[in-house]
């Protein structure tokens, strides 16, 4: 069933909470929902692009040098995203900083290339890339919304106020590095809690 390849990345094998991949950009740019959306669109593009190209080339890449080949393909897509963002969204490019070129060492992308795209057909790899990319987006936006609301008391996405100011004294610590670790710890504990409860009911 082809649709499975798309939906498995969303919840069942979510790259962040289940596979624990791509932690660095996840924690570093999840200070605001804007940044998180920009980052995850970039990751989605690189993931889909590299999955398709690697799947197309899978018969010609010799297994001994596959990792360098994958890295070159991924790095080319990252360079495209980097230049595109620099040209069309310079503000976002400035805020994401070195985390844009660092997509190249994001383990989600190399992981999917190695575990999936180098073995499966193009259409399956395309769906897998889209699913995993959206799964990453769900995770990072979830963390970013918690952090943005708690650290500023409000939420603005690309200039639109989604949640107005709730408090005059927001928790600044959520904006700082410790807040990122706290947020992901609590979300993972909640996931564990529901899994344990569901297992107990059966």
């Amino acid at each position, binding site marked *: 069933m082809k649709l499975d390849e798309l939906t498995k990345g969303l919840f069942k094998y979510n790259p962040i909470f289940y596979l624990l991949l791509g932690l660095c950009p996840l924690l*570093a740019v999840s200070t605001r929902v804007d940044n998180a959306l920009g980052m995850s669109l970039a990751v989605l593009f690189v993931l889909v692009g590299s999955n398709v190209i690697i799947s197309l080339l899978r018969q010609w890449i010799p297994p001994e040098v596959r*990792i360098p080949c994958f890295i070159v393909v991924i790095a080319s897509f*990252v360079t495209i995203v980097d230049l595109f963002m620099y040209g069309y969204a310079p503000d976002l490019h400035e805020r994401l900083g070195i985390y844009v070129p660092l997509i*190249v060492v994001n383990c989600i992308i190399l992981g999917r290339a190695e575990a999936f795209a180098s073995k499966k057909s193009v259409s399956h790899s395309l769906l897998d890339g889209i699913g995993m990319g959206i799964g990453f987006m769900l995770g990072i936006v979830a963390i970013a919304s918690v952090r943005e609301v708690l650290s500023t008391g409000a939420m603005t996405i690309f200039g639109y106020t989604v949640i107005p100011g709730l408090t005059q004294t927001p928790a600044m610590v959520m904006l700082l590095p410790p807040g990122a670790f706290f947020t992901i710890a609590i979300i*993972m504990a909640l996931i*564990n809690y529901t899994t344990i409860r569901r297992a107990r009911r059966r």
Partner: protein
Amino acid sequence: MDNLLAIAVGAIFVNNFVLFRFLGLCPFFGVSKKTSSALGMGFAVIFVMTCASAITWPIYTYLLIPFEIEFMRTVTFILVIATFVQLIEMVIRKYRSSLYKALGIYLPLITTNCAVMGVALLNVEEGYSLIGSVVDGFSAGIGFTLALLLMSGIRERLELADVPKSFENLPIAFISAALLALAFMAFSGMRL
């Protein structure tokens, strides 16, 4: 001339790679269960980060800038780092088998460690000189090792602790990392 002491203190404490910049988190949670393996990983990272800084700086300054192809830095850096790590692995395996036994299993993991790529990019972005870059790479590695050692000490204690079931393993590790990061926040604003 760069202020080398400021670079070193900045990379080890103020802008600690793991706890402030979130670079190298995968080994930080993956290899921090035992102090001995944390130390091995730490030494491998210090070595690779120092050498990677020393290699990428001349390539960027004398190759990419004269030909005006700075946009190729992502592709160049990752290839140089991956090749270098592979080379180191082969050399160590052939000539220093005891060292290979100690560091060998950690070396392949380092290629996809974003801390190494991160230090190469940061050196270029900050505009350090060659010596500044090497000092930055070395101290960033020390900072990484420091965080990894502290974390492994905490996790060895956590093994014996009575942790709520939902928080077992990773969530409690993340909470510990948060508290460590909070402690490291005390260094922020320190200027030399």
